[in-house]
């Protein structure tokens, strides 16, 4: 598939290439004087993002995820890349004690976080709970069979995975220092060309658009999970949009945001999401695991 070239913006020490994919603003920062290299790199990153979106979107019937969800419980054999991703999800589910669950997407049907007071009823919740649980799906040897009514989605790590794939694609084509940021999930190829670190602003969860702080990274990835604008308010209770698949209920008192650094984006994303799922124990969880993170309450 061809992607139309887009105007690059020239920065003091390179270029930025911007596009939209996976419902998020995406950008590549590349430190080079060569506009052709910057444009080619930008297109490579965009193609990678679009490829992953197309392959794993749950909104497309022809995507891998769409096919699995339409299989109505029949076993589906998947390709190697999907297999590696589902393996990741499978281990993440075990590692997180069931908190990280690719079958939990159906919860969004009853929990709509639009700032309203539409808290679902107990019956609605219990009806849905029977459809959630990766443990009920069968996964072995690259073959997946979902239980009745189950659906999967890769929303929990697809964007992060795309960032990692983009970084890998960049490394294959250039040694220029690059930063890939897909909707706030970002990773760099290494230190900047002058050996310095990249500066990354962190959005203030309470005042969108403002910066709560600035992080600097030399290598690896940074992701932020949060519930900035998405919540429900009823009888004075603030329901976060972080849903615990084990209870089908929102997590109580998660931090406003958790920012985590890790070697790869998919790791950082998993850790920041998992920290949020620990609710008021998020900081304690991070501390116990020896993970350095920045939590905003």
């Amino acid at each position, binding site marked *: 598939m061809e992607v139309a070239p887009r105007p690059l913006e020239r920065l003091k020490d390179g270029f930025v290439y911007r596009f939209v994919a996976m419902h998020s603003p995406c950008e590549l920062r590349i430190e080079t004087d060569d506009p052709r290299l910057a444009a080619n790199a930008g297109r490579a990153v965009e193609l990678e993002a679009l490829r992953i979106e197309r392959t794993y979107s749950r909104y497309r019937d022809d995507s891998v995820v769409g096919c699995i969800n339409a299989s109505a419980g029949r076993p589906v054999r998947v390709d190697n890349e999907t297999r590696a991703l589902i393996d990741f999800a499978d281990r993440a589910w075990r590692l997180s004690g069931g908190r990280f669950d690719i079958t939990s997407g159906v919860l969004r049907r009853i929990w709509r976080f639009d700032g309203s007071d539409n808290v679902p009823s107990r019956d609605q919740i219990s009806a849905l709970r029977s459809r959630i649980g990766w443990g009920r799906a069968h996964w072995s040897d690259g073959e997946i069979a979902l239980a009745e009514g189950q659906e999967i989605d890769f929303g929990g790590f697809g964007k992060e995975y795309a960032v990692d794939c983009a970084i*890998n694609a960049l490394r294959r084509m250039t040694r220029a220092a690059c930063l890939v940021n897909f909707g706030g999930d970002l990773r760099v190829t290494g*230190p900047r060309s002058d050996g310095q670190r990249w500066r990354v602003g962190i959005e203030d969860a309470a005042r969108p658009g403002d910066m709560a702080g600035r*992080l600097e990274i*030399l290598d690896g990835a940074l992701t932020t999970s949060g519930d900035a604008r998405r919540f429900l308010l009823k009888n004075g209770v603030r329901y976060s949009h972080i849903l615990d698949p084990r209870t089908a209920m929102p997590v109580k008192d998660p931090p406003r945001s958790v920012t985590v*650094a890790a070697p*790869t984006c998919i790791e950082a994303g998993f850790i920041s999401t998992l920290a949020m799922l620990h609710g008021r124990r998020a900081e304690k969880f991070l501390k116990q695991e020896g*993970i*350095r993170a920045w939590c905003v309450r």
Partner: protein
Amino acid sequence: MQLNPRKGRLTAALGLMTANLFAGALCAHTAQAQDSQNASQNINDDTSTDANLTRVDSAILFYQEANGRVKAIEPVTSVTLNDDSGDSLHVKLTADTLTGATPNGAAPWTAAQTFVTPSKTQGQKTTVTSASGNSQLVTIPGTDVTARQYTTPANTLPVDSGFRDQRYAIDLGYTGTLDNGDRLNLGGAWSTEHDYNSMSANIGYARDFNDKNTTVSAELNFEHDTSKPFFGTPEPFTEMSGVSKGGNRTKNVVDFVGGVTQVMNRYWLAQINYSLGDTSGYQTDPYRVISVVDGNSGAPVKYLYESRPGSRIRQSLYLGNKIALWGTVADVSARLYHDSWGINAETLEVAERIPLTSFLYVEPSYRYYHQSKANFFHDYLIDGQPLPAYASSDSRLATFNANTIALKVGMRVLGNDELYLRAASYQQSGTSHPASAIGDLKTENLFTGVKATSVILGYSFAFY
């Protein structure tokens, strides 16, 4: 409350998961090499077993590797106490100071390379420029991640110069003579450094036959080591980064040595030993990475922490001779070694002690060593190829030859004493330009072995 035994479990597991995830997509693998390094043994020429004699031996070792690499200063003191029933107690105290630069495992390249590693001083919130080598500390504010970065110039072997350690060790041994003349020895050793602890215990038994002309001995040694790297243990094959890693790792070593010492005639003593050892647990160098390079140009794409098998079974056969002729004493020994990592090694050593006067002797010696590489030795891995199960670029696992030339001078000063000085030059040679080198790596020296000089100055004395 949970007391943290699982600290770092998550990140460690995750590192492995993502390594799997991207293994097909970008990881790589390459040419093979193998090796090992092993010290040779000698017939124990310690003669300090006289009844009621106490011997004190103090020495200091200076060791220096060429090109500003490792430098060590090691004072040692040992005391051996003998009683009149043939029992003896041996105590040895060692203190080491190691400084200098160690190869970090990455291959040299035609351009400067920058490495990022977690800093030993975590938690600093300000950016610091350190004077240790050409590295600097950088901080990720808020996250408290403090990384250290250093740059290696073009065409230079990447070394990490932020290396310094201090080791203290104590060795204890007791030999008891039973009523039937058999000897039982028990020993233990303990050593500690900032990032490593080791303890061991051994038990041995020896019996004489044949009017004491034949001695058969067997010994078992158990060792337990704990590796506790400054910034945690990286998961093998994860990318080098400034983020702190997982927890401590351990390994266990069991060694058996069985031997026969035979007096051949009044001039010749021969010894044959067979040893079998099993090491299981963490044997990877937590500070060491391996370059993953572009398959055409050889340019570094990334640096992965190395990975070694958790099991190693070692066997060696040693044959030693001590021959006294014309007033001189010659030591001639050979050793064959094989292990499950694929390393085969041969050692040949010759030393000749020549008395010059009644109170002065010289002892020149020569040692030759050759080994074949471990089956998971790689100078580098190639981007895009599947990762092997294990890989290390440690020169000690490569194919190499080593030659040691030494000269020892000893003199009696007061009577029951000896002042000695031993100077040695050790040189490894290996494959600097393997035929399989790709791209511009053909022009780089890929052999990272050492040249070292050591000097020991010691004084021992005995009294009743």
